[in-house]
């Protein structure tokens, strides 16, 4: 079981890709706003919610 010092250690291939290279097309602020509003659904003011919940 003799080692062969002439042979260099194997190097694993490295995927050094940047995430930004795969990032989707940049959205406008209004597009992002619409997406967030769609994701969270309807918001209401805290006071209105608490009144409706009987917490006043």
């Amino acid at each position, binding site marked *: 079981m*003799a*080692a*062969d010092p002439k*042979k260099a250690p194997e190097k694993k291939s*490295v*995927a050094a890709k940047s995430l930004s290279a795969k990032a989707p097309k940049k959205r406008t602020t209004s597009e992002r706003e619409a997406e967030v509003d769609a994701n*969270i659904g309807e918001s209401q*003011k805290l006071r209105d919610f608490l009144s409706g919940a009987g917490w006043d």
Partner: protein
Amino acid sequence: MLLSAAERQLLVDQALALIEHLYVHLPLKRAMHAVDPLQRLRLLRHRSASLSEPAFHAELVSIFNRLRDLHTNYILPEPLRTRTAYLPFRIEEFFEGQEQRYVVTEVKPGTEDASFKRGVLVTHWNGIPIHRAVELNSDREAGSNLDARHARGLAAMTNRWLAMSLPPDEDWVVVTYRAGRRIRERRFEWQVFESGLSGGGNDPLAASGDLALVLGLDAKAEMERQTRKLLFAPEAIEIVRQVKQQTDPVLGGGPGAAGPVDFTVISKMPDVFTFRAIKTPSGQFGYVRIHTFYVSDDTAFVEEFVRIVGLLPQNGLILDVRGNPGGNILAGERLLQVLTPQAIDPERFYFINSPLTLRICEASPSFADWRESIAQAVETGAPFSHGFSLRPVENYNNIGQKYQGPVVLVTDARCYSTTDIFSAGFQDHGIGKILGTSGATGAGGANVWGHGLLLTIFPAEDSPFKPLPNNASFRVAVRRCTRVGKRSGVLVEDLGVVPDAVHRMTKRDVLNGNVDLIKRAGEMLATMPVHSVTAKVRNAGTLKRVVAVTTRNVTRLDVFLNARPYRSSDVIDGILSIDLPSLPAGSITLELRGFRNDQLVVSTRVGL
């Protein structure tokens, strides 16, 4: 919608049963925080009829928060349980010398204007200096140590899940901030929305099956994490949707299915992992962020991590678990093995000794290991059961080391429970160095159960647990854990994990991708040795198999076949060949263990 007098009594009685007979940290919390939750609950039962609805809930929340235990909570009933109150921005802190500063780091799209935007410094909150406002808010939070309470208080300034936080007292907040050289003010109304899970996360109160038994999670922080994605990161939500479409057979996807997502740069668990190769002044390293351990399948979790680190540079890994609220304890503890050649000794878990914990251990074979010592307590007087790992020790070592480079773990005070346990295991097994942005992790050292789980363990009419009104609930720490190795027996709860080095976050960190933090982690990695052993099998499928082994920084190589010693040799770096004996066809595992100065430094397993 409002609770009747009988329903209030029921809530208090159930809280008493949990805290008095099941809560494993009660002796610790009485000593550490000088609290008497049982007497406060008895007083609340006595006085509850005279309290308004908000005052009743506020007292119950306060009793639990004063335990300083993010595992042990009162879950408020509907409609609060499913709502989140928010302000449309996030603030984070950084340090200028010894001074803390607070900066807006995220703004809900559509909220920005010419002066209020990412990067402005907040100076006052409703006229209160911001550091004092955060301090006041922190005192209302349940974090175990000062760093953790501060972190929780800061998060709750703008984001409150009403299942576990009382609604803000104020309807709006006036924020004073510095934009350039000018001081400005802007008023923001608190808004409420129904806490959705469209970001791809799982309901932190809905763990079921085996996961419910092995949970170590700050549920509130998990929901806050998901809320932040919903409010500020629509791109991340979209990636979650695309990955689901590409991988879910029900949606026409599956393993290897084509689609827009490139899995060499995006995780198949995008809510759990993000990763990339990262350049630092000290070299290029791998970087993996684990956002949560809250996964139902711990094996799939570990396999995805192994896939990811296989794509990254092998000379060093920055493993960032900041803000990770925990989740599946098995995921955290089973992950340790892939980063080290050492055998993993999992943490031990203990019940408090009581007639109720004895009933639990008699009711389910899952807890048979604990039964005998609890039954003996009447004679031994021991306060806690004996300690056992959650699963047999083989479960924590059946994969072995998969990443051989050095690792720096990055932690903060928001790391909790499973993340505490993972960090403790990382330190106790000497896997690498820990770089903290706080003086300790969040210090949650237990397995937490929900009231709903107790209802399933005790379904009978004589059960001490009863269904609760309006979807109210409780969570309670039932099995505390202790560390292993040199710190054997040390509690994780309230103490947390102290890092090897502390890096105070800079303004560049919070606004520019953690650049100084990563530079520091890179400097640490550059001082750590790289060891490697890799193997390639030749003549696979024949009886005369030969293995070509490449070693680096290793002076001795031990070879095992199916866990039995085969040979041991001194080696120098390079490639060597090992002739394998003729072995019958079947599942054979070759394991190579590399030593330097007789210390085990690296290992690899190969299936033949």
